[in-house]
């Protein structure tokens, strides 16, 4: 499969678009793992997105939307994964579901927290502390209480 493609400017910057069949263009060979049913769902989704984009933005070039999006979406997630494979949002979601509402709310009411979160750092005031360190022994509830 060829890696060469024409560079064109899309809505999200410069993207490489394939010269041949878009769905089988594989910068990382990821498309070669697609099954026909996945491709079908993808095509359906593309059509749906295309319809939505038309209603949102009539003067948008629909050619770009349909044919470039596979590469754009793929490129975008590749870049994000390249920046870091870690996903702290998943851990956060987990903590979020387990923690009990309102517990630890007193921290938000402390002067330290209030001035920390309200500070903008723009004044460069000596008293402005951009770093807030909450410390405590193991199990006191720094992350949450379980």
């Amino acid at each position: 499969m060829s890696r060469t493609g024409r560079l064109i400017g899309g809505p999200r910057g410069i993207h490489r678009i394939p010269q041949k069949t878009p769905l089988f263009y594989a910068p990382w060979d990821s498309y070669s793992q697609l099954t026909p049913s996945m491709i079908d769902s993808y095509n359906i989704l593309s059509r749906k997105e295309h319809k939505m984009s038309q209603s949102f933005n009539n003067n948008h070039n629909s050619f770009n939307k349909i044919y470039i999006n596979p590469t754009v979406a793929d490129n975008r997630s590749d870049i994000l994964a390249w920046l870091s494979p870690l996903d702290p949002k998943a851990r956060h979601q987990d903590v979020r579901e387990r923690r009990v509402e309102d517990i630890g709310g007193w921290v938000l009411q402390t002067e330290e927290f209030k001035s920390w979160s309200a500070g903008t750092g723009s004044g460069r005031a000596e008293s402005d502390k951009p770093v807030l360190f909450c410390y405590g022994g193991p199990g006191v509830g720094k992350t949450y209480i379980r």
Partner: protein
Amino acid sequence: MVIDHLCSQARGQNTTVTCFYFDFASQNEQPPTRFLGSLLKQMVFGLDEIPEEISGAYDDRRNALGGQGLQISDLLKMLQTTSTHNRAFICIDALDECATEHIAKVLDSLSQLLQRSPGTRIFVTGRPHILPEIRARLGGRVTSISISPKRDDIITYIRSRLAADTTSDAMDSSLEADILEKVASDISEMYVEATTPQNTSQVV
């Protein structure tokens, strides 16, 4: 809790909130470059388009040596260009669980980030023993709060656990009151005893 609070405050503002959870068990997977990369990823995630600087670097590097990662200095530069327009809250949980050889680099990176992007606010949790290290690297920019479970927190917690109890027949209001009273006072004492000697040794 703090992250959720910041997120709800940030809605509609020109503000980003990013988080990172250091974990003792995955120290090897959390070097400083991945930590910074993760922050950058979260900032970029909220943007409609990936900044030219980042997509360009990606295109350059994926051809070199089969896909090269970024250096700390590259990541700091990118974080700077991505976050200058916004106020950026960075929340870091359990910094003490970061590998010891990496803590200095993480803190120095944060220090640089603060210098380059004055809108950055950093929230860190950890055990007290890393406070001297934080102060040494971040200097007078640090303020701190000591965390201990408050009596009200414990009562709220026990109530929520009791409410979720499936054998509710066995519970009546006087038993509930007894449990709350007993457990809450025991726990408060436990933490007073457990934290006091530790704090004194920290001061010394």
